[in-house]
């Protein structure tokens, strides 16, 4: 329970339905006293979760998961930026912290089920997108162990955010009902992730060192203060003055180059992902037609599996997608059903003909 509206309403709905509920808040990092009130994970949010449990008449505990979260999520977050990629820590938190470590804690108290406030649904042992297309969070859930699915309860997955907020108000959860959405990464104060990198990486780390901004043809058009400050598709921080707008199209950690190009250069016609995890028994095979998503809330795009090798997958996209960023998630769907996903390794800039 983050202290936010979704997990608060989830807990309330379970209590209403007669479940024996134990509320827990995961303490994931040491926030000291420097963080202002944030949508989740702060001291204020923890006490909001506690107050909700007090109102519901269920016990509330704070679980100290700082060490595991640091090891499984923050360390990887930093390493990914150092490799010139754009990490997605929420996926690793769900995979390792919430739906592995927390499930083990549930086992320790003989709790057969684990509930969260995610907008997603579990039906017949399969994970499905949430009823609210605008809120669906399956983009972050593809990595969890399939065996956990039968133990999941996702009480707000059938609702829209508007309905969730309405229930919170009905229940008298005034403080949480109208909290702003948590858009940022919970352990990154003010969205300034570079501050975290400066704290965790050596001062002379290549990712934070000066490098060249080069065009696709190799022309140097400027300098930057570290490629970790850039992500694929970004415009901010690039020199102006060119005839058409420039975007970051690639990061090259070995030379510290930030490569820029026109909008068309961002288009990906195929995508390669690794660390594939399947949530279904009937996993796709080469030739399978699926739908994919390469960023949160993006529209689904049709795709065909062109290669499957070990934990790696390659797909040809029915329509090109702009700014496919290595390190982000590739999630495969069949309708509302989540088939699985992986971490994006690269995109293909020309139509793939191999099959």
């Amino acid at each position: 329970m983050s202290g936010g509206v979704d997990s608060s309403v989830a807990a309330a709905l379970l209590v209403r339905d007669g479940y024996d509920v134990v509320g827990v808040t995961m303490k994931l990092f040491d926030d000291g006293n420097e963080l202002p009130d944030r949508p989740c994970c702060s001291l204020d949010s923890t006490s909001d979760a506690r107050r909700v449990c007090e109102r519901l008449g269920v016990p509330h505990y704070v679980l100290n998961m700082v060490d595991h979260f640091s090891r499984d999520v923050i360390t990887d977050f930093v390493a990914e930026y150092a490799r010139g990629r754009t990490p997605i820590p929420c996926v690793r938190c769900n995979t390792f912290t919430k739906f592995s470590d927390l499930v083990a804690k549930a086992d320790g108290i003989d709790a057969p089920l684990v509930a969260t406030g995610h907008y997603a649904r579990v039906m017949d042992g399969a994970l499905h997108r949430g009823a609210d297309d605008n809120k669906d969070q399956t983009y972050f859930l593809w990595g969890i162990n399939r065996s956990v699915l039968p133990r999941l309860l996702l009480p707000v997955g059938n609702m829209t955010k508007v309905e969730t907020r309405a229930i919170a108000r009905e229940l008298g959860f005034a403080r949480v009902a109208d909290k702003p959405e948590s858009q940022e990464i919970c352990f990154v104060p003010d969205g300034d992730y570079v501050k975290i990198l400066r704290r965790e990486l050596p001062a002379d780390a290549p990712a934070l060192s000066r490098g060249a901004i080069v065009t696709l043809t190799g022309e140097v058009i400027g300098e930057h203060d570290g490629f970790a400050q850039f992500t694929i598709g970004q415009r901010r921080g690039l020199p102006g003055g060119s005839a058409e707008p420039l975007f970051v199209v690639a990061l090259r950690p070995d030379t510290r180059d930030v490569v820029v190009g026109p909008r068309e250069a961002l288009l990906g016609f195929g995508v390669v992902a690794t660390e594939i995890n399947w949530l279904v028994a009937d996993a796709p095979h080469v030739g399978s037609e699926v739908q994919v998503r390469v960023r949160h809330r993006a529209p689904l795009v049709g795709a065909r599996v062109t290669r499957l090798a070990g934990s790696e997958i390659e797909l040809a996209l029915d329509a090109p997608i702009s700014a496919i960023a290595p390190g982000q998630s590739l999630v495969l769907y069949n309708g509302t059903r989540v088939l699985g996903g992986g971490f994006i390794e690269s995109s293909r800039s020309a139509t793939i003909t191999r099959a």
Partner: protein
Amino acid sequence: MTAPIYLDHAASTPVRQEVLDAMAPFFDMRFGNASSTHRWGRESRAALDDARDRIAACLGAHPDEVCLTSGGTEGDNLAILGAWRALRGAGRIAVATSVIEHKAVLAAMHHCAAEGASERMIPVDATGIVSLSHAREMIAPDTALASVMWVSNEIGTIQPIQALAEHAKSVGALFHTDAVQAFGKVEVDARKTPFDYLCISGHKFGAPKGSGAMFIRRGTPLEPLFFGGSQDRGRRPGTENVAFAVGLATACELTLSAHVREHARLTALRDRLQAAIVAAIPDAVVHGRDAQRAAHILNISIPGTDSESLLIALDLQGIACSGGSACQSGSVMPSHVISALGVPSTIAAGAIRMSVGSLTTDAAIDRVAELFPKLALRARGHAAA
């Protein structure tokens, strides 16, 4: 669920009925301000003087050596910062304390260091007893103040306060002891042991939270923390809480009058619980078992468990224990005290403190002796990697 079992008397205790009764008039018609000169004031002043006399008698002190406080944290801060600030100009540059102190002492000592003191941390041996040989080196003629707790709040070990206080005196250093867990459990007598400051906290033995006292030996310097009126000889300005003073005095007397009987009863309960757990889980680690311990505290690590999960499992069965020290958010951090014993971090992370007291019955111990091993073994089976 069957009746819940409270095994956390080292955290707090219920206010005794006699204490409530003794305090009641001072919330009612005897509400006067003890500094007022009229009848209402005089009545309060008389009650306050009487309470101070009785608390002093319980500590082997003169009444003017008793300063009333809001509890352990205030007393520790007042004694430590008050002694350091009074002495720092006089060439004594160091402060010394043990690594197993309560955070009220450690944080106050760190504050002295921030104000320029050289801070020395006295180690403990594997049994949880402060090393006298280190203490004799660290408490030296350059030392303003040393502070060592009498009974460890986490593992119950009884520290060699007599020897430490005598050593401090011999080098001219002031000596403070946090006796929050010691009062009523071991003999605390200012006539026998030459400490200069000593703190007790009422809610550990049947008085309300927010009541407490600091002993300060006659002639000992003290810089106050608060400034205002002249209450408590200027040591602790602010309108006196007469009701709590009366409550504290009553609880002190009741505690001491029952000390011998309670000591035997609590020792038997604690030892029986310890034996039952160790019999069921032979690799359980009893912290401080090779040292002299106060009767009420049992601290056990079950290898392969983390205390957080086990505490939740126990609580859900109605058994209240504690582990480590709670941080502000309420999550459990590995204990600095258990870590200081030199045990592996995996053992430190599993420490559970059970503390018996006025509410503990034979039947309660039977039930915990049966349930604890079951829950611990289950937690061990499900420990996260």
